[in-house]
């Protein structure tokens, strides 16, 4: 099984781990992530005004490439996933945006939101299946108490991202169970880490990350996992860090016994 894969800017630089572990794991699980040939940054932020078009084109380009290849598009970074999935929804359901974007793009065949956008976690849940994943785990992380940190971008707006119940998600918990560890459920796993605000308002980000980490710790989490490089940065940088934070792909690679391959 081949998927078109969009890594995004950060996975090429500061979050190489997230990418490398995912690729190694994919190989072990029997699917391939085929990188988009010429991708540009998704913009990191879903365009703030409903009248913007130019900032959506990078996503449309990627989506169209997947469509032309007849593949689903897989993403890893929460922000990329959020942006591309929402742009895809616009292309499917908002006629104005669809026609304006296609006017710019001048594609051989107009793009109308045909591509299926999947987060890597969704591939694990819906394509591989957590039950199958469990069978393929060679090095179960038994006894580890892990808190899932979802953040905001993966889940909201729930109606469009349709990723999981935005107020009580379970996908990462199910993932944690599949790799043999014990999920720790805590209420702030879907609250914002502060995001980009940490650039100029460090205190704000700190207090938000503290709430998250304290809550997770309170419920017994020994570590947190996330899918987002920015969440990772904030949780590491802005808290008194005695709860380590990992990318979920790192634990996946470890459980599958392919961690060294990635390194």
């Amino acid at each position, binding site marked *: 099984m081949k998927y078109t894969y969009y890594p995004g800017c950060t996975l090429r630089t500061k979050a190489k781990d997230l990418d490398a572990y995912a690729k190694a794991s994919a190989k072990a699980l029997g699917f391939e992530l085929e990188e988009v040939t010429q991708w540009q940054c998704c913009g990191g932020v879903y365009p703030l005004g409903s009248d913007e078009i130019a900032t959506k084109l990078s996503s449309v380009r990627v989506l169209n490439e997947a469509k032309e290849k007849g593949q689903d598009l897989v993403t890893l970074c929460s922000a990329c996933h959020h942006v591309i999935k929402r742009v895809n929804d616009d292309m499917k359901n908002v006629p104005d945006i669809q026609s304006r974007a296609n006017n710019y793009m001048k594609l051989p065949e107009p793009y109308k939101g045909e591509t299926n956008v999947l987060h890597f976690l969704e591939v694990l849940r819906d394509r591989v299946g957590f039950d199958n994943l469990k069978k393929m785990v060679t090095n179960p992380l038994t006894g580890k108490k892990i808190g899932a940190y979802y953040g905001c971008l993966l889940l909201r707006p729930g*109606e469009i991202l349709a990723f999981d*119940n935005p*107020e*009580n998600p379970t996908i990462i918990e199910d993932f944690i169970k599949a790799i043999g560890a014990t999920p720790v*459920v805590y*209420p*702030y796993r879907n*609250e914002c880490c502060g995001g980009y605000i940490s650039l100029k308002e460090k205190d704000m980000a700190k207090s938000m990350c503290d709430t998250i980490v304290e*809550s997770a710790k*309170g*419920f*017994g989490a020994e570590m947190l996992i996330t899918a987002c490089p920015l969440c990772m940065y904030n949780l590491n940088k802005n808290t008194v860090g005695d709860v380590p934070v990992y990318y979920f792909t790192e634990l996946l690679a470890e459980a599958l016994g392919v961690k060294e391959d990635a390194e």
Partner: protein
Amino acid sequence: MQRIGVFVCHCGSNIAATVDVKKVVEIISQEPSVVHCEDYQYMCSEAGQAKILDAVKEKNLSGIVVCSCSPRMHEGTFRKAAERAGLNPYMVEIANIREHCSWIHKDMEEATEKAVILARAAIAKVNLNAPLFPGESRVTKRALVIGGGIAGIQTALDIADAGYEVDIVEKTPSIGGRMSQLDKTFPTLDCSACILTPKMVEAAAHEKINIYTYSEVDKVTGFVGDFTVDIRKKARSVDMDKCTGCGVCQEKCPSKKTPSEFNRGLNNRSAIYTPFAQAIPNVPVIDRDACIKFKTGKCGLCEKVCQAGAINYDQVDEIVTEKYGAIVVATGFDTIKLDNYDEYAYNQSKDVITSLELERVMNAAGPTKGHLERLSDGKHPEHIVFVQCVGSRCNDNRGKSYCSKICCMYTAKHAMLIRDKYPDVKVTVFYIDVRTPGKNFDEFYRRAVEEYGVNYIKGQVGKVAPQPDGSLLVQASDLLDNKQIKMKADMVVLATAIEPEASVRGIATMLTASIDTNNFLTESHAKLRPVESPTAGIFLSGVCQGPKDIPETVAQAGAAAVKAIGLLAKDKLLTNPCTAKSDELLCNGCSVCANVCPYGAISYEVVQVNDHGIREDRRVARVNNALCQGCGACTVACPSGAMDLQGFSNRQIIAEVDAICR
């Protein structure tokens, strides 16, 4: 050619402000076949109707067009006026120039032009009208009440007291409904059971009332005055006549893990159970999905311990067919599912409960024997937070668009009861608006604040976060202080939106009673006929029609009973004469019409016809006017054009089309 009189109503300024009434009269006067045309302030008034009578006499009118409000308002009025003037009432047509014209258009020229066209269409139709004569149908002097809650019980009692037989069909094992689950009632804090149980007993003992519990309506046929209903009496597995209600079976039953419906799943019940102690009838049922005997064939303990020999595992569902003249729907409500509201942690914490669950917690017969305690650890709470409007007043695909109406009052009640019984417990209520219209209602709410010190904060709760120590952290806004609050609570109570009981949808379909997008049954007129369904002979009682509290429900239940009594008191009903009629010269006896008729009103007979001098025997369709309801399905299905609908004939409708497209 008819001699038609046209009357254009001003309806005060309702029509005249947008439609140039004088101009309509001027143009319409020119129409062929119109021999009289005038306008008047209020055609529906006594004086307006007198104008019709005068004109019929003076101008020898044969048909009448009234340009006025919707025929759904005053068609009957004008038909009666025509009758008084000596005309056949079906020689009247209404041009709806209010709801379909003056009220929805702003431009006078446009509206006037449209009014003229609508009048022309009505004139074209009247030109082809023929006198029609209603038949008669009988009235079965028995009423059916669907639902045995307070609404159904009250309706049944009122109908029975007037001397008519009433059957109540209740789907659960006991009558009593939601009210039996309540602890106290507002605004006087009567104990709910204390005022409900006497009514339940009265209904059960009433010689005119027959109660089918654990039963459902399976099928409804017929029409006003003459409904035939199949009632499915579900197998109780207990003989109603033998059981003494001793309760030993329930004690001994080894399967005790089924969530109690009556206690909203807060504790468990046995597989053989009566929902609550005062249940009527006091005869248990066996829940076959939970019963070990039914699941494995082993056990049979209840049969062994039953002294009366009442247990019968072989019982099967029984269908009872009854005839009724009137049907009252009183199916009530349920609270919405909270799966879309996980920010309140309802599914994550046992200490986040709905208000209806709190009723059970507060009730002496409930899961905590009436002690206010946290359901997670049984601890006495120090602080309880109430959240209003959970799922009400939403337009976001998660909740309901309407106000559930009862929550403000029951929350004040809960807060007051808690503060009264446990003065040490702090109570905070987050509200958007406090809505307390009703006699002594606002006073009640103010007492909660002023006498009982309940802390009302204008704002909403954004998140309830369960804490490692078992408490709940409530994050909310205080709009008057412009603050965001984070407060610790031990319990959170959600004023959950109510919605019509799920079974109402199927019942409405069976009754062909209309239902709105929220599954509330539609009343015939929002203001003037609030307890009648547009479907004749169907009446509405209680929350199935819209959210309401107990006093309102009881009032509406009485009103529905009066309407049903008014129907049952008649010996005969006039039937709608707008029925199908087959032209035997055109009919080829193909049976297509009978196949589409939902009422079985069409049969075939062999008649001798004289077709252009040729006499022959032919098989032709014959419509039974007593059964035909006048839908017209047969008229379109008929391949030879033999079938037509009186009052809405092909020629009449085509004349209207022509007039509009002219």
